[in-house]
């Protein structure tokens, strides 16, 4: 499988001089297309920082992030936004759905910033909600959905632009165990359909469900 994402000597340092601290230290990592990778580690180990850098939401202090053979450190803010829109789908622990906005409108939010014509938005949104089995709640607002359902909407939103990589940051953190399991099942299914999944979790039992587990401690990859 071709390499989809590569991190070369990535370091992320916060603070300055006296308060300086390295959240990530010289990280080297390769993720191939179609992989299901989990990133795990204790709280404060740097796994969220790693996910933000992989997701192009944050810049490394040094090192390179190569996504689809593009060195992202040389890209401007608008180009990064475009790459996030086309190649990455985010699933957050807090769901991050827009309140007072229907499931369908939440799902199609990334399409607003894409090249896909507006007339196709609704059709695609319904298709994605159907894929995560929540089509019947298309007009419901987040307040009218359970936690599991909200996360499904968030996954549908992550899938809408058909990105190569789904980045899931503690996607089951706010769910009961049954809903959590269903979300992991859904992610596994998406992986089987060809999506590259990067799951960030502190829960070892979930992390083990991935094809490859990366443990991070004190800003460094342990295995």
């Amino acid at each position, binding site marked *: 499988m071709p390499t989809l994402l590569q991190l070369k000597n990535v370091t992320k340092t916060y603070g300055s001089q006296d308060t300086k601290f390295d959240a990530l230290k010289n990280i080297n990592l390769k993720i191939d297309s179609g992989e299901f990778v989990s990133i795990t580690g204790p709280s404060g180990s740097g796994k969220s920082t790693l996910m933000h850098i992989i997701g192009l939401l944050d810049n490394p202090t040094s090192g390179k992030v190569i996504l689809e053979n593009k060195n992202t450190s040389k890209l401007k803010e608008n180009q990064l936004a475009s790459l996030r829109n086309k190649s990455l789908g*985010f699933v957050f622990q807090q769901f*991050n759905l827009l309140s007072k906005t229907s499931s369908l409108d939440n799902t199609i939010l990334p399409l607003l*910033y894409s090249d896909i014509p507006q007339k196709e938005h609704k059709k695609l949104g319904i298709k994605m909600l159907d894929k995560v089995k929540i089509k019947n709640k298309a007009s419901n607002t987040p307040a009218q959905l359970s936690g599991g359902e909200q996360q499904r909407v968030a996954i549908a939103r992550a899938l809408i632009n058909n990105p190569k990589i789904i980045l899931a940051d503690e996607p089951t953190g706010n769910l009961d165990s049954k809903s959590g399991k269903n979300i992991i099942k859904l992610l596994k299914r998406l992986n089987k359909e060809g999506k590259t999944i990067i799951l960030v979790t502190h829960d070892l039992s979930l992390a083990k469900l991935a094809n490859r587990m990366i443990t991070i401690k004190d800003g460094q990859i342990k295995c």
Partner: protein
Amino acid sequence: MLKPNPRELLKSSFKSIFKNKTRTLLTSLGIIIGVTSVILLISIGNGLKSFINDQFESLGSNFVIITAGKIFNEEGGFNNEGAYTTFSFNKKDVTTLKRKLKNINAVIPASQSTVKAKFQDTIKESMLIATTTDYAIYRKQKLKQGRWFNESEQKKESKVVVLGSKIAKNLFQNTYPINKKVSIGSANFKVVGVIEEVGGTLGGPSFDDYIYTPLETGFNFMENDGIQSIDIAVKNKEDIALIKKETEKILLDSYDEDKFSVFDQNKILSSINTILNTLTIALTGIAAISLVVGGIGIMNIMLVSVTERTREIGLRKAVGAYPRAILLQFLFEAVILSVFGGSIGILLGSIGTIALNNFFPAKVTIESILLAFGVCCAVGIIFGVAPARRASKLSPIDALRYE
């Protein structure tokens, strides 16, 4: 290409704003009040101008007017001191003008004096205008009852009067006034006619309170026999400027230039319009302060909105929103808030103008609506830029972490 396209951006901004209707209404209140006041004041200014123009038209045009005293100042406004002159013209001046001026219909002298008019037990103060029969013809006096005094009465210095509609009503109540006697000073005058109502004169003495009598008759009963004003009825409008010049020349042979004023109706109109324009601009400017206050209110709420929606901004950036898309969304929201308030203001201002028109001349113009609309857009942009820039500059990761 702009992403999202402006239509989508507008839709999204509308949705965000109208999620909280009460807040939207309260935020727009400053703009609503400001625009309503601006529309009302401009409408009143415009209404007054057209009212005065109509009044002048109804009194007859094509006149060169001569008055005693210098009544205009150098800036084109009215000269207060000029109104209190003791100078007056005489009958010889009238004869000279009649003889020397060409292409004119009439030279109409008028002398005026404040008098007390009495009918039975009712006494009313009035202005007695002593003039000629030509006044009725060229000043287009329409009579409600009776007739204007005639040439023969003028020659015989008959004690006859024509009453303005208001003084007639005040003196005679329900009695038919024609051929009744009115006491002015020590003499009794026969009422021969009553003029139709002319209407208000915006604070000055009302023409409806005037009493008209033949010139010579008036001289017999007035304390002076001076002529305070002379109207020259010109045949063609195009000749007004030339006749004005000739008139000045003729009068300068007898008097110093600061003793009299020669002007036409346009001069008075433009002087009144200058005053009205200045007043309208000043009052509209004061009302516009509330637009600035409204704009600050919008900026305040937009800053609150940016803070409240920090996570949303982070999310939008995470899913691919360019900084410019975020900037435009918040800017559109500020402009929509302002234009929403402005539209309600325009509506209320227009309704207010229609209501006001029953009591006072007021007229909404398309220019005032466009001005108000333009100012609203400008207020939205000016006061929306700072919050929108703040939103667009948020780092996606800081925004997503915001609690």
